[in-house]
């Protein structure tokens, strides 16, 4: 057995290589005073991470760091000593991060989930928006709340943007398919563009289907039947 000795009890003997980097820190002077908070954003989505970072900077925070992979958290903690961690809930490595924090409990820098000590509405809002935060113990709830409020609203705005973008993209796709089907009808039936469009629309209405579905069927059929 490779014998590590001298550990007082079972809590403190869990080891994780990256964690050892910030063992000595203890509670930072920052959180004791009114000085500025250090914030770490962990988000695999680079665009969203930037949006959150911008929001924090606009709100006057200057100690903001961003990482895209939880694996970097050990190194970043050493460099930036975060008081608040903001992480997206899509991140599959959230369990890893929590385990990492649970190990740190024994090492003088306890980190807890922020929503744990906030009100039910805040918890609900954060989970619904897809964001969570962890804070260094001893940090006042009032100091973190504006950060969470900002993160929640920006996560929601980002999700809305993504939905709209997705919708615009699918509308564009639909339009392309309809144009293609229209061209096939014009070529094979010798119709004008307006008449081809009207035929597509009437067929869709008669069959109680969407125009794009009719267009898709027509394109498939045309492909099968050849030129």
């Amino acid at each position: 057995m490779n014998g590590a000795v001298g550990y007082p009890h079972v809590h403190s003997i869990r080891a994780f290589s990256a964690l050892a980097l910030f063992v000595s820190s203890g509670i930072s002077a920052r959180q004791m005073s009114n000085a500025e908070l250090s914030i770490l954003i962990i988000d695999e989505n680079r665009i969203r991470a930037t949006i959150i970072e911008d929001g924090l900077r606009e709100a006057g925070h200057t100690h903001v760091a961003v990482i895209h992979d939880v694996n970097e958290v050990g190194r970043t903690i050493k460099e930036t000593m975060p008081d608040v961690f903001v992480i997206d809930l899509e991140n599959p490595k959230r369990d890893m991060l929590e385990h990492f924090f649970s190990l740190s409990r024994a090492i003088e820098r306890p980190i807890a989930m922020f929503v744990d000590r906030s009100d039910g509405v805040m918890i609900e809002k954060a989970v619904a928006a897809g964001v969570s935060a962890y804070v260094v113990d001893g940090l006042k709830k009032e100091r973190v709340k504006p950060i969470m409020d900002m993160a929640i609203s920006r996560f929601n705005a980002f999700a809305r943007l993504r939905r709209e973008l997705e919708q615009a993209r699918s509308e564009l796709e639909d339009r392309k398919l309809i144009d293609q089907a229209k061209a096939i009808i014009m070529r094979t039936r010798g119709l004008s563009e307006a008449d081809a469009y009207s035929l597509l629309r009437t067929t869709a209405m008669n069959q109680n289907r969407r125009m794009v579905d009719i267009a898709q069927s027509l394109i498939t059929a045309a492909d099968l039947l050849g030129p």
Partner: protein
Amino acid sequence: MTALTHITAGFLPLLDSVLLVLAREKGFAQAQGIELQLVRETSWANIRDRAAVGHFDIAQMLAPMPLAATLGLNPLAADMITPMVLGLGNNAITVSDDLWSAMREAGAPGNLDALGTGQALAKVVGASARKLRFGVVHQSSSHNYELRYWMAASGIRPDRDVEIVVLPPPLLPDALGSGGIDGYCVGEPWNSVGVATKGARIATVKAAIWRSSPDKVLGMRAAWAQDNPETLAALIRAMHFAAIWCGEPANHAEIADIMSAPAYLGQPAELVQRALDGRLDIGGGQIAAVPDFYVPFAHAANFPWQSHALWFYSQMVRWGEVGFSPALASRAAATFRPDLYRAALAPLGVALPADNARLEQTLPARSVDGLAMGPEGFFDDRNFDPSQLENYIESQRDLG
């Protein structure tokens, strides 16, 4: 026709989400008046949080998760319970090709035997210049406690001699392939994926470490169960019929096909079927027959034994996650609810265990209360008597 009752369930891409999937896909839920919506999640933390805030009515959970939530080991403390187990077994311990070579040289038998394999690993760990690193899926998981139990009983002190890290199931094979970890304990199909894609070796299985033991449960807030007794009973019946259907070998090919879909496991059906059939490719093309590898229904697999909850509690105490007190022990035991399971199935007139807890001891297959029970017990033949909880915990202090 009356309207269906809507239930939202969270799950992770693991084979033992199969009972939820079948309840939905094969109409067992609908037959009980339930519209079951399944939401795939990316982490156990999300399952826990979304169940706690009520986004999910129910969820596939790691068996110790309702205990951890109720005992306040989690952020977002919430009283959680389970009225039903989602099957026995399903986990394995998989190691890298390099580690396996070393274990082989140290005398590993290569037949999944937990004792001989553990002793070989202890020799390798003792001789290794660096700490070997093992991945588990969560701290509050049977994987974590089994791996530690197996190591400790083999002479390895898990907190000193090796490193145990947490990674989500789908990322474990890649972490092993890149050399980030040397081995992992996870549910299927992620052991078979490691074998198929990373040249890994299945060293031993949960069914060898602790025979007939639970892995995932149907978890939920205690308040939801209390507020929806009829819906819950209907759900348990739906899952009961799904479990019976899942246990039929004739259905395995169809089940593997359903589970292989991108929305569920997103892995080849052939690979998914290995665990269902209990015929594993354990590496290098060697096929091992493990008939009890995953038991979805037989051997009273779905019955939430309170002795299982207490064993998990004993291990939480053992590894310093929580203190011991009789009050905490009874809270832990009460998160497993055999009463709700019995009440739901009583109208069906099926055989049910009469006891809520049992001695976890080495026993062969036999019949109890009209039920065919599987072989039981721990690989090191140490028995767990839930009425002697404190003594049991004390007896493990010297083991690491």
